[in-house]
């Protein structure tokens, strides 16, 4: 549990001894489970181990919080559960079903990648979590966004402000546009601290300076204006701002898209470190699968407002099941493998005002069957923790079980073969068997 370090968290929060011992115990258990001969043991056992250590991780991370959970929170509930999220936009010409039945779960300390082409609903999904949607958007009835088991969907705008910044914060795409060009960087970081936490000016600026140091910017650079910083520095400042109120979840919307590859590597490494050491949970939205491959525990591939495939990163990327995931992966060059022609995904994502019947990917799918054109494929969970919505992978085949939104909330991906990474033993970090 590296984020705890020597017992005093990097945020200066002390762990009590008992919790630390419990964590150590769990870590050992997880290790034992992983090194047991024949690690490809029945899923049940592994799932059990995962639950123990993941629950311990959850309790530890929550014990480190600088303030208690929100009042109605269930301390044992998963951090974030999204059930059947449907966010639609009203246009003159009809409803655009930008997000249409997305379910997923995010645990404490976990990093989830949200990938897909532009217009597939990634950003809308993220904005729905904090309800920062434009006026013509409606979150449909039956959608649930539960943070510590508190449903945020019915919350009023005023009530939401308890959760934005302090529970869920966001790093927006294009730091040039997200920062105010006429205000000093540290003032901008101090603002949420003052507004949300009621901290005085001087103290908030001091904290802003410390946050800048945390993300690798000398505190004195805080007195500069955004245009005086390079692209990478601006993005770091945005991350500092997202951390201002010690949130549980940070959403990064294409945080590295406009950056050079070396700066991108720096920023991703920073996010990864912050996550491990502060016990953050991360939702990383990107069109670049390669970015999630190195940073995330789990990946959720979206297509046309729906989940195409979801599961542990190594599982999904080493053996993608959904034709869309396969095509998408083929479209990226892999510099560490053999040179091969890049794949083309024919056609374009569908118009979400009037999505195609059946599977939404069927007009572009290389393996399309008759059933794809009429029937929406149900989501099927496989024993390795991957959830797929494709008629090629029906329930019953390879041990797949059909799942609904509620199952997604309850489901914890099995720990395939735990590799102690010096951090939390996360589900799916193991090598592909």
């Amino acid at each position, binding site marked *: 549990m590296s984020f705890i*370090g020597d017992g005093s968290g*990097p945020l*200066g*929060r002390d762990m009590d001894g008992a919790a630390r011992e419990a964590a150590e115990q769990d870590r050992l258990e997880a290790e034992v489970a992983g090194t047991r001969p024949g690690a490809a043991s029945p899923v049940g056992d592994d799932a059990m181990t995962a639950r123990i250590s993941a629950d311990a991780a959850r309790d530890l991370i929550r014990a480190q919080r600088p*303030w*208690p959970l929100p009042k109605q929170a269930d301390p044992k509930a998963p951090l974030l559960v999204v059930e059947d999220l449907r966010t639609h936009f009203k246009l003159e010409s009809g409803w655009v079903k930008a997000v249409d039945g997305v379910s997923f779960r995010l645990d404490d300390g976990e990093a989830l990648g949200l990938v897909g*082409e*532009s217009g597939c609903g990634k950003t809308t999904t993220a904005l729905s979590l*904090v309800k920062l949607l434009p006026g013509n958007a409606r979150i449909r009835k039956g959608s649930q966004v539960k943070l510590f088991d508190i449903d945020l969907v019915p919350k009023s705008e*005023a009530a939401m*402000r*308890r959760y934005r*910044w302090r529970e869920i914060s966001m790093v927006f795409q294009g730091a040039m546009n997200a920062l105010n060009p006429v205000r000093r960087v540290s003032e901008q970081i101090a603002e*949420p*601290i003052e*507004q*949300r*936490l*009621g*901290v005085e000016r001087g103290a908030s600026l*001091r904290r802003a300076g*410390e*946050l800048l*140091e*945390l993300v690798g910017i000398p505190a004195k650079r805080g007195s500069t204006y955004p245009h005086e910083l*390079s692209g*990478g520095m601006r993005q770091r400042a945005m991350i500092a701002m997202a951390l201002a*109120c*010690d949130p549980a979840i940070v959403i990064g919307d294409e945080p590295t898209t406009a950056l*050079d*590859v*070396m*700066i*991108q*590597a*720096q920023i991703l490494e920073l996010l990864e*470190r912050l996550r491990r*050491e502060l016990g953050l949970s991360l939702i990383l939205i990107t069109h*670049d699968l*390669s*970015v999630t*491959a*190195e940073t995330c525990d789990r990946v959720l591939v979206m297509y046309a407002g729906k989940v195409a495939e979801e599961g542990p990163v*190594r599982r999904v*990327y*080493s053996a993608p099941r959904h034709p869309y995931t396969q*095509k*998408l*992966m083929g*479209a990226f*060059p*892999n*510099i*560490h493998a053999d*040179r091969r022609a*890049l794949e*083309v*995904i024919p056609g374009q994502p569908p118009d979400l005002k009037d999505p195609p019947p059946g599977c939404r990917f069927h007009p572009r799918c290389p393996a399309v069957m008759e059933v794809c054109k009429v029937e929406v494929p149900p989501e099927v969970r496989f024993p390795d923790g991957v959830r797929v919505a494709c008629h090629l992978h029906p329930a019953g085949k390879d041990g797949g079980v059909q799942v609904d939104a509620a199952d997604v909330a309850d489901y914890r991906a099995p720990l395939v073969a735990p590799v102690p990474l010096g951090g939390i033993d996360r589900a799916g970090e*193991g*090598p592909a068997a």
Partner: protein
Amino acid sequence: MTDDLIRLEGLEVHFPLHANLEDVVLRRPRGAVRAVDGIDLAIQKGEILALVGESGSGKTTTGRVIVKLTRQTAGSIVFDGQDVSDLWGQRRLREYRKRVQIIFQDPYETLNPKQTINDFVAEPLQVNGIARSLAEREQRVLEALESVGLRPAREFAFRYPHELSGGQRQRVVIAGAMILEPELVVADEPVSMLDVSIRTELLRLMLDLREQRGLTYLFITHDLSLAWVLADRIAVMYLGKIVEIGPADQVIRSPHHPYTQALVSVSPTPEPPAPGLGAQRTILEGETPDAARIPSGCRFHPRCPLAFDRCRSEEPPLVDMGRGQSAACWLAEPGRPLPTMPTTAAPAPLPEVTPVATPEPSAKADPTDADPAAPPA
């Protein structure tokens, strides 16, 4: 070599810096931004050469010099055996630009929103007085649109840019560049604004056009893996200099310059590396230095994990490493890989942030509850 289509020799582009208005008036520069600082580069007929580098490395400036949008401060450009370094003046430039075209990065900015696709693509014909009759011009435009995959061309020709998707816009831009049937096309990040699926289609299109017309490309990109997939040769630029050049696969597989090696190591891939492999990345610290203050000696030495004394004082020349590969590094030796790069060192502990003194702000004390007027959200 005789079949070089274009050859740059000792090309330099220095932008003067002026401290104040007086300096500007008196043309008294106080230093210079050395955007391109002495490069030699030859592109053969029918070749795709990728120029790779971070922002600020001078790759775009090099491209602009080739199409003569920026004037070089020193060095020469030889195109198809003719020295075109001092080719200025409208008429001669027009002749030159019939043969050398550029594709810009952003198809949203390249196209004039008030101009139809037809007008945009036909403009080069008009300017150059080719295909004077309307019918002939239209015929040429439709052919160009067809050749970039905008079919039926007639339907696209009279639309406005806002009616097209990003990928279609970039196709229009390519059609505009191709209509004069150039020999050399400088493509400056032609796909970096586009979605993955569209990206591949456009790269295929560029390759097809090369096949059909024997085009030569200078492909400018920051994406090493894209360069590797597309190009015959890769030139890696750092702070205005070419630090390594060679056949694409060779440069990636056996880089002789630490900068190339680091770039390869951090290039993300869709397949996650096996456990442990991820640790072999070399993340360079800091950012590309200011081109107005280029470090002494090897310009890469402040960020180089392998730098030693000589690197700080002497600038390494670009040395032939055999098999068409050259690198500018004191450590580079033909046939021998670079010393192992230290992987990213164990980072210093994160600095502490003082916890906020207020415990859970109570409902009353919570400013967010008390004040519904909207601060940032």
